[in-house]
C-alpha cells in the first residue's frame, strides 16, 4: 500500500506543507515525490534504521516503572519540517533582537534597575520573581552576558505567524536531538540531501566551545586558552546523554560536583596528576543546586563555595546565575516592552497574547473566560501548574479561579493557540500533527543560531502537547535555500 498524500486532511489549521487541500507550498514540492512513493517495506526499514541508530548510541530514556529498566527512544518522525530561507531570516532577526534585549534586561535589573525606575516593569514583579537572585546585584559578569545559551519555544498560529511561547534562558535541553536527527536522516535519505540545499547543523559543538572560551572570567590566568568543563548532575539525569554528547562535541571534560574542589576561592578539578584549574563551567545544573552554601543546603550535585569563586571573578558559569527571572511567565509578558525600551525597536517576533491576573481588568477577564483560556502558573514548566480551559472540568476551572484570586501575581492567561500542523507518519499513513519549534541561540562574540532547531511533534491525534512524556516526538528541521 505504502504512503500517500492522496487523502491527506489539511483541516482547519495552518499546515506546514499544504497551503490548501491539493495546493502544496513550493518548498515542500520535492518531498512529495519521495514520500508519496515509499512502500510499506521501505517505511519499515526507515523506522528500523532510525531506532537502531538511536538505541546503539544510547540516545534513550529509561522507563523505570516496569521494573526492568527498559530503554526507550524518543519517537522520531521521518518527514522533515522545512523552513524556507526567507522565513528563517525573519525568525533569526526576531531571536537576535529578543536575546539582545533579554541580556540588557538582566544586566539592568542586577545593576541600576533603570527599567523599574522608568516605570516599564513594576518593581514587585522583579523582586517577587521566584528565580530572581539578589546575590547577583552589583556583580559584573564577563562581557555582560547572562544568557549564553537560549532555547526559545516558537509556535505558529492559524495564519502561520511565528509567536514566542517562552524563552528558556536557564538550561535549555534537546539540542543533541537536532544533531542526531540530522545524522539519522542523512543515513536514511541521502538522496534528499543531494537534491536540497539543507543548511548544516553540525557545527554547533564548535560554536558552543567558541562561546564558552569567549567568556573567560576576569582572573583567568590563561585568558587566550581557558579551561572549559561541562558540569552534569550525573548519569541518572534524563539529559545525561546530551551532556556527554556535547562534551564530546567540544572535546572538554564532563564533571560532576564531586570532581571539583575549591582552594582559595579558585575552582579545581581532581585529576590523576593533581589539581587542575577550571575557568569556565557550562553547567547543566539549576541555580538551586549549584552551591549548597548559598542555595539549597542539601544539594550534593553542586560545589560548596562556587558562588564565592564566581563573585571573585575566578570562574565563570554559563548560563549565569539568576537568568531564571526572565523565564518567569509574568516577566515574559514584558519582553516586547523590553525590546522597545532597550533597543528602541518594534518586536519582530510577538508574544502569544497574554493576560496578567495581577492587573484587575485582565484578572476579571481570566476568571470569566477561564473555559476558553490556557492558565499557567508563573514558574512551573513541563505541563505542571497548568490548565487548558476547553479540556478541563468545571471543578478544575473553579480550582484555578480560586488560585488566581488568592495569588494574582503568579498566573497568566493565554488564548488556546491552534498550533500549526506538519505531515507525519502515523500508523502507516500520513496525517497532520501539531508542532512547535525550539531554535538554539548562542550569545557570544556574535549571536549564532543553529539553522532550524528542534521540531517537536505531538504524535497523539488532536493533541497540542509536544512533551516527550505525553507522546511527543521530534523531526528533523531543514532550513533550505530555494532556487
Amino acid at each position, binding site marked *: 500500500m505504502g504512503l500517500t498524500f492522496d487523502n491527506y486532511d489539511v483541516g482547519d489549521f495552518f499546515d506546514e506543507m499544504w497551503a490548501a487541500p491539493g495546493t502544496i507550498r513550493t518548498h515542500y514540492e520535492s518531498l512529495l515525490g519521495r514520500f508519496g512513493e515509499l512502500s510499506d517495506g521501505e517505511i519499515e526499514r526507515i523506522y528500523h534504521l532510525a531506532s537502531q541508530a538511536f*538505541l*546503539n*548510541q*544510547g540516545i534513550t530514556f529509561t522507563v523505570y516503572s516496569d521494573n526492568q529498566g527498559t*530503554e526507550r527512544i524518543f519517537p522520531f518522525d521521518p518527514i522533515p519540517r522545512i523552513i524556507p530561507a526567507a522565513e528563517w531570516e525573519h525568525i533569526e532577526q526576531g531571536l537576535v533582537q529578543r536575546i539582545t534585549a533579554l541580556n540588557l534586561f538582566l544586566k539592568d535589573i542586577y545593576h541600576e534597575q533603570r527599567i523599574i525606575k522608568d516605570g516599564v516593569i513594576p518593581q514587585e514583579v522583579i523582586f517577587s520573581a521566584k528565580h530572581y537572585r539578589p546575590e547577583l546585584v552589583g556583580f559584573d559578569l564577563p562581557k555582560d552576558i547572562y544568557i549564553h545559551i537560549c532555547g526559545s519555544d516558537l509556535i505558529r498560529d492559524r495564519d502561520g505567524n511565528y509567536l514566542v511561547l517562552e524563552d528558556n534562558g536557564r538550561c535549555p535541553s534537546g539540542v543533541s536531538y537536532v544533531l542526531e536527527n540530522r545524522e539519522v536522516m542523512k543515513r536514511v535519505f541521502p538522496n534528499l540531501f543531494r537534491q536540497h540545499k539543507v543548511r548544516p547543523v553540525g557545527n554547533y559543538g564548535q560554536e558552543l566551545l567558541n562561546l564558552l572560551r569567549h567568556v573567560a572570567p576576569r582572573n583567568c590566568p590563561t585568558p587566550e586558552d581557558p579551561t572549559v568543563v561541562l558540569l552534569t548532575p550525573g*548519569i541518572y539525569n534524563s539529559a*545525561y*546523554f546530551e551532556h*556527554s*554528547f556535547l*562534551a*564530546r562535541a567540544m572535546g*572538554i*571534560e*564532563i*564533571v*560532576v560536583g*564531586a*570532581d571539583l*574542589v575549591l*582552594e582559595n576561592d579558585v575552582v579545581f*578539578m*581532581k*585529576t*590523576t*596528576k593533581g589539581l587542575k584549574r577550571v575557568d569556565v563551567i557550562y553547567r547543566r545544573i539549576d541555580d538551586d543546586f549549584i552551591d549548597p552554601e548559598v542555595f539549597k543546603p542539601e544539594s550534593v550535585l553542586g560545589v560548596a563555595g562556587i558562588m564565592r569563586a564566581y563573585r571573585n571573578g575566578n570562574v565563570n558559569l554559563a548560563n549565569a546565575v539568576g537568568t531564571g527571572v526572565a523565564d518567569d511567565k509574568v516577566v515574559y509578558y514584558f519582553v516586547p516592552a523590553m525590546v522597545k525600551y532597550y533597543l528602541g525597536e518594534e518586536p519582530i517576533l510577538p508574544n502569544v497574547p497574554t493576560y496578567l491576573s495581577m492587573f484587575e481588568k485582565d484578572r476579571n477577564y481570566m476568571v470569566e473566560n477561564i473555559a476558553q483560556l490556557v492558565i499557567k502558573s508563573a514558574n512551573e514548566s513541563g505541563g505542571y501548574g497548568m490548565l487548558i480551559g476547553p479540556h478541563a472540568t468545571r471543578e478544575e476551572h473553579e480550582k484555578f479561579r480560586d488560585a488566581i484570586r488568592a495569588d494574582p501575581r503568579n498566573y497568566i492567561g493565554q488564548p488556546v493557540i491552534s498550533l500549526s500542523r506538519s505531515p507525519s507518519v502515523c500508523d502507516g499513513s500520513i496525517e497532520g500533527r501539531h508542532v512547535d519549534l525550539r531554535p538554539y541561540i548562542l550569545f557570544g562574540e556574535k549571536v549564532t543560531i543553529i539553522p532550524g532547531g528542534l521540531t517537536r511533534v505531538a504524535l497523539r491525534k488532536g493533541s497540542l502537547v509536544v512533551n516527550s512524556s505525553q507522546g511527543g516526538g521530534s523531526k528533523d528541521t531543514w532550513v533550505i535555500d530555494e532556487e
Partner: protein
Amino acid sequence: MLCRVADSLYWLPRYIERAESSARILDVNLQVTLDSEDSDNDSESRAWQPILATLEDQSVFPSIHSEINADNVCSFVTFAKENPNSIWSCIAEARENARTVREYISSEMWERINALYLWLRAEQARHLAGSSGIDFYRQVVDMCHQFHGTTDQTLTHHDGWDFMQVGKFIERADNASRILDLKYHILLPRGERVGGNVDTIQWQAVLRSCSAFEAYRKVHTGQVTPWSVAEFIILHDRFPRSLRFCIDSLDLALHRISGSDRAHFANEAERLSGRLRSELNYMTIGEVFRKGLHEWLDSTQGRLIEIGNAMHRQYCEWLEPEEQVQKAEF
C-alpha cells in the same frame, strides 16, 4: 585526566574480562560434561560444583537454587541479577562505567559495549542460551573480543588506555589463576588415576578455559601434565593470557602512566607490580609446586588485589592537601 574517569576506565575492561572469562569457563564445562559417560544427578553435580567453588559469590547460589546442575549453575553465572559477578551484572556494570566516560572513550567502543548489553537483554539471547549454550557463550566471548579490539584500534594509546590496560590485565591474571585453581577443586571420580584419561581431559579443559589449548599444543606435543600446564599458564612469556604476560603488561602500563623507567618505581603500585613481575621472570615451576600450587595461586591473587588498591590510592582517590602531606611523611 579526572580521578573519577581513571577509576571508571580501570573498571570498564575488568568487567568485560570477567564476563568473558565466565563465558569461556561455562562453554568448556558444557563441552566436557557432554563427553562424560556418567549421566546421573550425582556426577552432574560433581561436574558443576567446582565452577561454583571458584566464584567469589557462591554463597548467594543456595538462596536461589536448591540443586547444583548444569542449568542452575549456568543460569546463576549468566543471567542472575542477584549474583554481582554474573555475566549479566558484569556487562551492566561495564556499560554503566562506559556511560560515565562516554566523552572519553570512542563512539565505536560505546557502540560495542552497548550492543552487547542490548543483545544480552533481548529475548533471542535467552533463547539461544537455552537452546545452544555453547553458541551463546561463544557469542559473548566474541563480543568481548570485539570490544577489546575496538578499544585498541580507536582509542588514543595514552593515560586512559593505560588505565584500561591495568584493569584488563589484573582481571585476566586473576581469572587465569582461578581457572588453574579450578583443577584443585575437581575430584577425580573413584577408580580414576592421576594421569589417566579423565585427569587428562580435566587438564585440557583448564587449558581451553584459558583459550590456551592450541597455543599449548604448539609448545608441548606430548602428554598433558599438571606440571607443564601450570608452567604454561603461569610462566609463559609470550602467551597473552599467562600470568607472567599479564603482570608484565600491567607493570608496563603503570610505568607508562607515571613516566618512570621500568627498572625503578615511582609509587607503591609500581613497586608491587615490579616485584611480582621480576619473581615471575626468574622463578621456576618447581618452586610453585614446592610451595603448593593452590597456596601459590591464592597468595598471588592477594598480591593482585594489593596492586589494584595501590593504583587506586595513587590515581583515583583525591586527598585533601593535609592528607597528602601525611602520606608523604609516612
